[in-house]
């Protein structure tokens, strides 16, 4: 809302400078976004909050200033008796009284359309509008002065001698004053004459009934249109005007007559002519709202002692009228222009802001100083623990948007049975669906970096994914995604160490360890199985907790690599973090340290390529029997001198008993058991 220093001064005595005024208004709740000196005047740009439609007018702002400064408001004098009985009066039919519960009209005849006088043009220009002619300028002037939008019709273009306030019919059309043809329907309220639509109520007038240089007679409309009706019409037609803006927020139905009177008085002065009587159709009775405030409550809520005199004086300046009531409370009737004041707490806010928030002391709450348990829910703490673990492993945390392009989810969908949720009113195609997994997000992040020549990538993301359940209710779950590409590290001592499947497996197992999850299974994900199409056929795995799959990891398949422009080998992991958090345990129980020495034996084996390493370690553990045997693979050898189709693995076996020292005979015996079991399974000892 734009207003000027000199215009407001017409209604209230201001002795402070424009800058001081801007500051006081801001600190009382009307934020002044900018203040410009135009040479002749000062122009304020204010941000009016939606609860204060009364501030969308000069009088409203002047009233606010009068309350802040404690000065009297001087509204213009309204003249009601300049009626000429020879002039007719409009016949008004309101057929939808919910959409328009009050419509006033007045006819003015024998007008001389001319240029507006200097003072009026200056006022119009000072708020950024263009002067047009004396009639139109007066209606604009009164709109901004009072906040009541007015409309002037050329009476000669209203055929039939009556106007209707009704819903438009399907297929009706109107050409508005901006020369646009607009299709209408029953959602839209219009002003119509015998020949059809004349104006879109509260939004914009019609071209064919507007005031032009040739106009001689005018019908002046001053009405109250329902905010929702005007809002819907404006949205449908994609229009916002100074009129619609005010109707949407609620104009003052008690000010229709005074605004009309003000306009008529000015029109008669500037354009001559005569005016008929005001026709006031619809409901006229407005029941005054009563609200009261308890001074004790004001003090209790704000934490400061506000004198009763202050409360009474300020609320009076805002337009409230004191009425008798119970002793512990001050009672008021609220004017129609302040429909936002409905309950006690609304009055307390008025008192607080006029008292000045700065004048309310700052006291740390006693409750905060008293001891109480600040804490976090288990899920939040567990998620933090998982995040801390991954960061400690050297990974960088990424965050992606929850809204994604529909097309990626089809490609990266590991579970084709998941029902995706779509946005009804998306901002773009790229953000029209809720993500069902974190994969496109993390691959986009990867691809962003690769496109900028950052090729060593170790990132992870924890975030929610969304889907519709069987009962069509939405579900959210927290997932974890990890992405690796390039080198894990590169230094002058060890050269390049590329990231690979086993390192990813290590990160996952380390995470499970940090979450206290000891029982889990890692199995092959199967070649191109429905859920794991995204992974390369050769290096893929699924993680299971309690026999249920909770995620997968492995080398990224060719398809997704191409889709995201990734040319080198890379690795991905996607887990249901909720499942891990549920299985997590942060309880630690001490295990007594071994008191007796262990014995290690190294063993070098030759096995066929196809034999899984796990089979070998399982065999070793089985053979070692009751001697606790830690089995650690410390070397893999597959050079020229190894038989084709075979691999050489070297293990370090650690034999231990918890309750006594092992004898060398026992170790030898166990070790030969191990060797013979391996040999029986076609595994040779080197």
């Amino acid at each position, binding site marked *: 809302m734009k207003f000027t220093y000199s215009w407001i001064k017409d209604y209230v005595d201001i002795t402070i400078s424009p800058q001081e005024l801007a500051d006081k208004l*801001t600190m009382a*709740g009307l*934020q002044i976004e900018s203040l410009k000196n135009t040479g002749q005047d000062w122009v304020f740009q204010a941000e009016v*909050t*939606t*609860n*204060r439609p009364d501030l969308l007018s000069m009088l409203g702002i002047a009233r606010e200033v009068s309350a802040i400064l404690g000065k009297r408001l001087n509204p213009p004098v309204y003249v009601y008796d300049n009626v000429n009985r020879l002039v007719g009066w409009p016949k008004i039919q309101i057929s939808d009284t919910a959409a328009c519960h009050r419509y006033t009209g007045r006819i003015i005849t024998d007008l001389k359309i001319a240029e507006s006088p200097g003072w009026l043009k200056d006022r119009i220009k000072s708020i950024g509008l263009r002067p047009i002619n004396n009639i139109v300028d007066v209606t604009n002037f009164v709109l901004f002065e009072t906040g009541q939008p007015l409309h002037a019709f050329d009476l000669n273009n209203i055929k039939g001698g009556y106007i209707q306030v009704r819903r438009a019919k399907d297929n009706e059309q109107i050409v508005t004053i901006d020369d646009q043809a607009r299709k209408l329907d029953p959602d839209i309220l219009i002003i119509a004459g015998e020949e059809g639509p004349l104006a879109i109520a509260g939004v914009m007038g019609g071209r064919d009934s507007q005031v032009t240089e040739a106009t001689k007679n005018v019908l002046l409309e001053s009405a109250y249109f329902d*905010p929702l009706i005007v809002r819907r019409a404006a949205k449908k037609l994609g229009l916002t005007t100074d009129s619609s803006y005010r109707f*949407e927020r609620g104009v003052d139905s008690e000010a229709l007559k005074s605004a009309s009177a003000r306009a008529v008085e000015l029109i008669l002065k500037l354009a001559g002519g005569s005016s008929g009587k005001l026709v006031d159709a619809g409901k006229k009775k407005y029941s005054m709202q009563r609200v009261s405030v308890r001074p004790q409550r004001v003090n*209790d*809520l*704000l*934490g400061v002692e506000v004198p009763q005199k202050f409360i009474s004086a300020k609320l009076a300046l805002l337009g409230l009228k004191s009425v008798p009531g119970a002793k512990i409370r001050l009672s008021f009737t609220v004017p129609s222009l302040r429909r936002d004041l409905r309950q006690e*707490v*609304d009055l*307390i*806010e008025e008192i607080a*802001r006029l008292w000045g*928030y700065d004048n309310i*002391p*700052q*006291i*740390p*709450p*006693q*409750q*905060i100083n*008293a001891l*109480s348990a*600040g*804490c*976090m*829910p288990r899920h*939040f703490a567990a998620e933090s623990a998982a*995040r801390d673990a991954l*960061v400690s*492993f*050297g990974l*960088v*945390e*990424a*965050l992606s*948007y929850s809204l994604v392009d529909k097309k990626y989810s089809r490609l990266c969908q590991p579970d084709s049975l998941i029902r995706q*949720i*779509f*946005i*009804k009113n998306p*901002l773009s195609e790229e*953000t029209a669906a809720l993500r069902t997994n974190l994969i496109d997000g993390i691959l986009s992040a990867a691809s962003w970096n690769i496109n900028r020549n950052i090729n060593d*990538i*170790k*990132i992870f993301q924890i975030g*929610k994914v*969304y889907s519709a359940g069987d009962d*069509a*209710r*939405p579900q*959210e779950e927290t997932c974890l995604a990890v992405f690796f590409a390039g080198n*894990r590290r590169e*230094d002058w001592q060890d050269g390049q160490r590329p990231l690979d499947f086993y390192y990813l497996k290590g990160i996952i197992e380390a995470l499970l360890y940090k979450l206290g999850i000891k029982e889990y299974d890692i199995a092959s994900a199967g070649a191109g199985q429905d859920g794991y199409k995204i992974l390369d056929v050769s290096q893929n795995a699924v993680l299971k907790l309690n026999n249920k799959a909770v995620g997968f990891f492995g080398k990224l398949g060719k398809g997704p690599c191409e889709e995201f422009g990734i040319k080198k080998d890379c690795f991905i992991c996607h887990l249901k973090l909720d499942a891990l958090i549920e299985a997590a345990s942060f309880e630690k129980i001490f295990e007594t340290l071994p008191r007796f020495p262990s014995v290690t034996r190294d063993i070098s084996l030759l096995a066929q390529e196809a034999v899984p390493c796990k089979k070998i370690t399982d065999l070793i553990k089985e053979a070692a029997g009751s001697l606790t045997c830690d089995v650690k693979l410390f070397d893999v050898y597959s050079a020229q001198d190894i038989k084709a189709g075979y691999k050489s693995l070297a293990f370090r076996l650690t034999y231990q008993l918890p309750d006594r020292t092992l004898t060398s005979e026992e170790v030898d015996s166990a070790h030969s058991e191990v060797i013979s079991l391996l040999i029986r399974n076609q595994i040779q000892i080197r």
Partner: protein
Amino acid sequence: MPQEQRPNAGILINELKNQIASMIEDKLQNTPDAGQSRQAAQNFDITMPAVLPELGHKHPLTQITEQICRIFIGMGFEIAEGPEIETEYYNFQALNIPKEHPSRDTFDTFFLDLKPDKRSEALHNWLLRSQTSTVQIRIMEKISPPLKIIAPGRVFRPDATDASHSFMFHQIEGLLVDKGVTFSQLKGALAMFVRQMFTDKTKIRFRPHFFPFTEPSAEVDISCVFCGGSGCRVCSHEGWLEVLGAGMVNPAVFEAVGYDPEIYTGFAFGMGVERIAMLKYGITDIRMFYENDLRFLKQF
């Protein structure tokens, strides 16, 4: 050895010990090896680059969220979480924002293509929450006062994305309800927070504003962290930066959750994590948080 002879013997033994030690020392310095280790010491280049451990980084938004949460946990607040997908009831009605009210425009939301939810005879559409105050309502429905909670989380608004706006961002909202809670205490609590979050000299300013769920409401500014309040480009030469919204909980909100507003009062506040991160770290474009450029992420 008899008692009277021990002191003298002790001195002699000590002398012998020292002699032997220095003879050993001499030998060590003058053996052929000694020369080699001196040489090696001279050839060892300590300026060769360190072999660094692999450094991980938390996302800057995570770091700010954790810092804010720590401050409030230290004041006795509990962390609460809630769903990102909400119904109109929790996102609007329960927060005193009735259907079709113009104030809804400022809280424009993404609606979801799902069958509406039924709640006591009324149908409510599913949407993505536009503020984390929804969590506060859910908690108040479950427990009785007094309570102190903070709710961090993602929120969504259909704002066109540019350097300072994003359709998705993170908020942290707080709520404290008890008997005798005042506006004065709200000022004190936020002043405490601001001094721990920024600097202990940071000043705080409350300006009247409008939120449907609080009355009185305020926008809260801090003295500009870059110029200290004297005025600079960052604060548009105002000296103040808006960082929080706050106010006393509107009695209508209490009534919707079954708290008696005559017995209990409370205050609520909210802040944007991206905004605070951008102010604290000097980040200029909000989109950088979601591009995940490693050169950006590794700075924090």
